[in-house]
């Protein structure tokens, strides 16, 4: 054994197995990350996010040039001041608790304040939501072995939507807890779907069918509730939640979603190997010793957590979770480790990009100072792109 050689098994992947054993499938623990296609996807996506983010922070009621905006984003007064950074990331109270700093924070320029206080958090929330939805969709597509699966296939969106409507229309007093209620509604609907699908275990088809059943009933109830809304503003608010919107998102939303996002993303990366095995079919996975029901439920739970985190801050943004995994698979292949990592980049690129259209598009087209929910833009962009993928490839998803 080469265990006594200090270099063996290192992360470089340069272990020599002789000529009969060439290399392990992964060159070292992180060797698979340095796949040129994956790097290209990540780089391209970061560029899109940066560009869209720059547009987002430059334009608005208080317009500035790109250079001004860039300077404001990279303002050393914030970037190199942990107090300001913590103030944004964890909130003022916690910042004071952590740093023990009691005085007034140093003054910032007007540009920096506008960018950091108002515009940047929206970009960040967009990126977080994009990541969550993309990863959630990727997981659900593997778990259900269905190329048309999205984060919302197992009843999550209908459960969340119903709870949103109930809260807005019936229990108006609870609207402060709307994000939480929506996320909980989605999770409960998912559990309900699982319970319906369960009969000596589940199967992908049973799960999808149960999702359709629960979705149909909940959507009807949701639509029915619209009739009881006596105020147009309630209806608008409801539509904003059920189509997904980043309007008015703030650091508050970043703080709310970030911890759950981190948990969900770490778990989904850890589960990538299980997802890969699920792609070989239930029988093979079982024959290789996977406790398939447990793994399937756990992975679905991770996906629901990611979806719920995004629902809590942005409502039900459609299409992102459906198309991003497809795009990523087309670009980096079907290995789920790469797919998940790719989703972490492409998801934000799509959502932050689409949010530019949602926030500024109406102003450009009609001159009116109005925003549309970002979910409308992702649908408008996503649909045709999906069509393009479908025309170009024989096997769209290669699942």
């Amino acid at each position: 054994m080469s265990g006594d050689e200090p270099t063996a098994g290192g992360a470089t992947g340069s272990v020599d197995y002789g000529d009969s054993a060439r290399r392990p499938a992964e060159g070292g623990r992180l060797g698979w990350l340095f796949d040129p296609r994956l790097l290209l996807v990540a780089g391209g996506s970061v560029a899109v996010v940066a560009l869209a983010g720059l547009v987002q922070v430059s334009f608005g009621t208080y317009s500035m040039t790109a250079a001004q905006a860039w300077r404001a984003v990279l303002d050393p007064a914030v970037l190199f001041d942990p107090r300001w950074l913590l103030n944004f990331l964890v909130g003022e109270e916690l910042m004071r608790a952590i740093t023990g700093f009691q005085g007034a924070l140093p003054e910032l320029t007007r540009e920096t304040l506008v960018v950091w206080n108002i515009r940047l958090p929206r970009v960040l929330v967009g990126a977080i939501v994009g990541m969550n939805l993309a990863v959630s969709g990727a997981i659900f597509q593997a778990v259900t072995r269905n190329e048309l699966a999205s984060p919302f296939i197992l009843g999550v969106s209908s459960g969340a939507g119903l709870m949103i409507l109930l809260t807005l229309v019936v229990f108006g007093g609870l609207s402060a807890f709307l994000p939480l209620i929506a996320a909980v509604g989605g999770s409960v609907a998912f559990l309900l779907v699982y319970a319906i699908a369960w009969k000596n275990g589940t199967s992908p088809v049973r799960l999808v069918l149960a999702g359709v059943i629960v979705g149909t009933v909940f959507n009807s109830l949701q639509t029915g509730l619209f009739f009881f809304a006596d105020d147009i503003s309630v209806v608008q608010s409801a539509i904003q939640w059920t189509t997904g919107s980043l309007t008015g998102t703030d650091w508050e939303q970043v703080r709310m979603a970030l911890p759950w996002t981190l948990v969900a993303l770490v778990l989904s990366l850890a589960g990538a190997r299980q997802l890969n095995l699920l792609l070989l079919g239930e029988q093979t996975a079982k024959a290789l010793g996977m406790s398939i029901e447990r793994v399937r439920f756990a992975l679905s739970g991770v996906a629901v957590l990611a979806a719920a985190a995004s629902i809590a801050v942005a409502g039900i943004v459609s299409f992102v979770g459906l198309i991003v995994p497809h795009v990523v698979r087309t670009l980096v292949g079907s290995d789920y480790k790469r797919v998940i990592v790719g989703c972490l980049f492409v998801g934000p690129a799509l959502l932050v990009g689409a949010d530019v259209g949602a926030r500024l598009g109406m102003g450009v087209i009609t001159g009116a100072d109005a925003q549309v929910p970002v979910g409308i833009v992702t649908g408008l962009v996503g649909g045709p792109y999906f069509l393009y993928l479908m025309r170009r490839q024989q096997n769209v998803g290669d699942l």
Partner: protein
Amino acid sequence: MSIERVNATDRDESGGSNDIAGARGSDDAATDASDLDGQSLVLGYPSAPEPVIDGESIAAEPGAVTALVGPNGSGKSTLLKGLANQIAPDDGSVLLDGRDVHSMDTKALARKLGLLSQESTSPDSITVEELVYHGRYPHRGFFERTTEADARAVERAIDLAGCGHLRDREVGSLSGGQKQLAWIALVLAQDTDVLLLDEPTTFLDLHHQMEVMEIIETLRSDSEVTVVVVLHDLEQAARIADRVVALNDGEIRARGPPEEVVTEDLLSEVFRVDAHVVDTDRGPRVTPLRARHGE
């Protein structure tokens, strides 16, 4: 059931579970090979009211090749799935070296027992090598990366399955026969003591059928792996197996060495064909003459 008398050696069919391992093969049975023993198995599917297999016992001779044969729908795949713990038996038990497979940890079982299913699906874009590495799943902990032992097992499996020239090809670009070799390499990489193969040669061209047969023959001559294989082709079964078990209607109708099981009587009773069976030095040669109509 007149068919019970088909088997000339008149083995005890009614309940003897160890007859295969016990009687004839004991002289060459390797002691370190694993022993798979299905006892009074009742196997069925939740959707069907009647069990497919109703109280049959089957024991795989350690280190040897046991072939399950029978007409379509005779329950041979069901029996194999039952042995592999893919279907939980309604009654009876499967013992692997004396331990009930149903109570074993799934990964621990997968380290001892491998199953090649009839239908295997995989993403088109993964390479043969990546596919074969999945066979190491039961040997790896949740966060463990592949080790040198994994790499060696994969190399050996790819070598044994003869698909070294395919290792970097994408699975989606392979022919049916090449795919089957890749999947066989996957179960070989699992490095199990018992290997269950469900119709590994069906739908393959002659060349790939022979490739698969040769892999099984290699395993047989090593006598370290206990193999149970479902085969459609009687001649193939006779040629490759140490023991043949013939099923019909979910019942075991005959079992024993190929030359005793593959007979004209069995063909007419179980497979419902008139045939000539000639003993050759490569085992019995079967020439089917005509299908038998009516009962």
